[in-house]
Each structure stands twice: as C-alpha cells, then as structure tokens.
C-alpha cells in the first residue's frame, strides 16, 4: 500500500548510489563547457535534477556516466539556444577553425616540457575557446577516455564525425596554447 512512497524513496536511494558517484565527472564536463564559474555549478546541479526526474528511463547496468553526460549536453544546448548564441550544431566555426589550422600547423619541438609551462587555468581557457561540440568531444575523448562510439551517442553524431571533430579540436586546442606560449615568450613552439 505504500508502494508509491517506497518507490520514490527507493528511486532516490538508487539514484544516490548510481548517479551521484559521478558528480566530479559531471562537474568537470560542466567546467569544460562553462569554465570554473557558478554557471558550471548550476549546470551540474540542473543535470542531476533532470537525471533524477528521468531516472526511470536509465537502464541499470549501462554506463550511467555517459547517460549523465548526454543530459548535461542537452541542457547546455538548451541554455545556448536560450541565450541565442548557438546555431544548431555550431558547424561553421568548426570548418573555419579546421581550415585555419591546416594552414598554420607545425610540430612542437618538445611538447611535454612546453605544456608543463601552462597553468591549469590557461589550459581550461584554451579549451573553452573551441566551438562547443569540439570542446565537449575533446573532453570526453581525452579526459574521460570514452570510446568514440560512446562519444557519438552522447553528442548525437556519427562515429566518423567524432573522429574528425576530435582531430580538429586537438589541433585548434594546440593553436590556442601556441598563442599563449608566444605571448609568454616560450621557446619550442614557433611556427
């Protein structure tokens, strides 16, 4: 007779056990999209509230983290649409960025040492300058180390698009860091 009540309380308990352990991962993805800001906190919180609302649709045994990332991405896109700063999939600047990168790219002489010179904030700032879907794709591939199939499902594109998007994102990420490096006078990254 108290199935409804117990059901809701049980759902909340299962949610706490299954979804909440991914809090740091979701927060990092929010930081990748919004930077370290209140906006990242709000996006994380909204993601979990939305996830709780839809928890009945989550299939136990599947990748909860990937499911949360998908919710986060959808909420982020909704926010961008509301702010009227995003196109449908932001493809135009991706193309422009890719074209620019192809012209300018050269190889760094000692990448590992050079990259140690950047602060974490500079790394995040460089990532944040990428187009939205490139930014999330690179984060999911490099930081979360998800498979291209999983990233394709989260971002709603074909695996081939994930591959090309990752490649372009990495190149553009490097270009942004190169700009910082030149500003700071680092050697080893001259074009």
């Amino acid at each position, binding site marked *: 007779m108290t199935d409804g009540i117990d059901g809701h309380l049980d759902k909340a308990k299962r949610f706490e056990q299954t979804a909440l352990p991914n809090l740091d991962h979701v927060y990092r993805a929010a930081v990748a999209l919004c930077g370290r800001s209140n906006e990242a906190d709000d996006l*994380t919180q909204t993601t979990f509230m939305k996830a709780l609302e839809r928890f009945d649709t989550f299939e136990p045994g599947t990748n909860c983290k990937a499911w949360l990332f998908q919710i986060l991405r959808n909420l982020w896109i909704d926010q961008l649409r509301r702010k009227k700063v995003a196109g449908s999939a932001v493809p135009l600047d991706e193309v422009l960025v890719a074209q620019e990168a192809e012209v300018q790219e050269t190889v760094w002489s000692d990448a590992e040492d050079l990259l140690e010179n950047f602060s974490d904030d500079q790394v995040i700032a460089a990532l944040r300058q990428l187009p939205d879907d490139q930014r999330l794709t690179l984060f999911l591939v490099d930081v979360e180390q998800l498979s291209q199939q999983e990233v394709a499902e989260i971002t709603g594109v074909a695996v081939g698009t994930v591959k090309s998007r990752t490649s372009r994102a990495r190149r553009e990420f490097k270009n942004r860091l190169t700009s910082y490096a030149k500003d700071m006078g680092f050697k080893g990254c001259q074009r």
Partner: protein
Amino acid sequence: MNHLTEEQFEAILQGETEAPEHVAECPECQARLAEKRALAQRLRQTFTSIQASSDLADRIRANVAAIADGAAATASRPRTIVLAAHRRLWSTLAAAAAVLVIALPVGLYFNTSSQAKAAQTELVEIHKRNVESLGELFVHEDPNELADYLEAKTGHTPTMLCPKSGLAMCGCSTSQFRGRTVGSYLVRGPSGPVSVVVIPDSPKSLGMKPEKGKQPSQPAVWRSRCGGCNMASVRIGDRSYYAVGQVAQENLDRVLTDLLAPCQCCAR
C-alpha cells in the same frame, strides 16, 4: 614517404590500432604523435585535479532528498482514493481487513498534510522574522550585491526584483527551512512588506494549490494561506520563489510578476 593521416593518429591515440612501422622510421610522425599524446595528457592532468565543491555536493543531495520527500508525499494521496474505491467493492467479510488497509494511507495523508502545513508555517515564520528584525537584514542598494550575499551564504544566486519595479528592497537574510539554510529578501510595497523566500521545495510538496496563468505561456501560480499570511509561489529555474505577506494575493502577484518579467536593466 607517406606520413600518417590525422585519422590514423587518432586511431593510435584511441588505442584502436598499433603505430605502423612507418612511425619508427619517421621523426616527423614520431614528433606529431608525441605532441598529440602530450596534449591529451596535459588536458587530462588539468581536469583530474578538479572536484565539485562539498557545498555543491550537499546542495544536490539536499535537492534529491527534497524531491524524493515531495514525490513520496504526493504519492500518498491518490492511494487513499484508490483504496477507498476498493473498499466499496469488498464484502462485509473483508471489511475488517479493509479498515486496516485504509487506515495506513489515511494516516500518511494526514501526516503529509501536517508536514505541508508545518512547512508553510516555517515560511510565515521566516517572513515574520524578516519584518521584526528589519535592522538585522543585510542591506545594499544594489540587488546584485544582495544576490551575491545570498549566493555566498546558500550557494544559490536568486533572481532579484528590478530596482525600477516600484517595490522598495529592504534587505535580505538567511534562515533555516526544513533543516537547510535558505535565502530570502524583504520588499516593501504600497500595501505592506512581502518576503520572497527561495527554496528548492516545490509548492505542491507544501500542499499549495495551483492556479493556471491567464495566458498559456504564463506559469502556474500556487497559492495558500497560513498564519494570517497569504502566500503565492512560482517556479524559476530549479527553485521555487514564495512571496509571503499579510497582504492581498494581488499584491503578491505584483512581486511575482516582476520576478518573472524579463528586464533589460537587470539583464534577465
């Protein structure tokens, strides 16, 4: 010599394939692969050190608990009706058992109802304290400063009233509501003071009744009366805003209308 394509580099980085022999013989492809690996590693290193604050974690847990409590409270009500309907179908022989079946959900209903009433009373108490301790409110002429103050105290940045709304902002404060720290601010209108209390709990979970907006696009306003005060509530984002005061519902509507209206000068 054919250098590796971008797709091949990505396949190697993803662990899909081993680096072909060409890489061992080509310094340029070696350097490019090393560079891509270093970029991925640096990005990973940056983010793995980032953690959600304990404050954010607490807020999410509190919201999950509040939503679960609210849903459980709501779930208990229709059960009463279902079981009452079942009771009519059973014979006299089943009556004794039916009494037991009905008694529990009815008890839960009244328990829920009393919890809702207690929560409404807490809101009224917050309003009364705001009015009585006017001198102890945090006061600033800039609503953004008040919002920052509440954000620092509660972890949430509330939507504030536009300074041009004609309602005088008296100040803001924090209080305890259902064991959690919540923010509120006090405004003074022509008919008296009104507190705006910002909490995650839905007005439904507080036993309030909805009144649909006149236009389909307008959100429902939830209403109730408790302890000599009227209260009205709307949902903005993931919080409910409760306007509480010893004023008519129309005066509360004025406050909520201003909260919901997009405002050029406040950038909302």
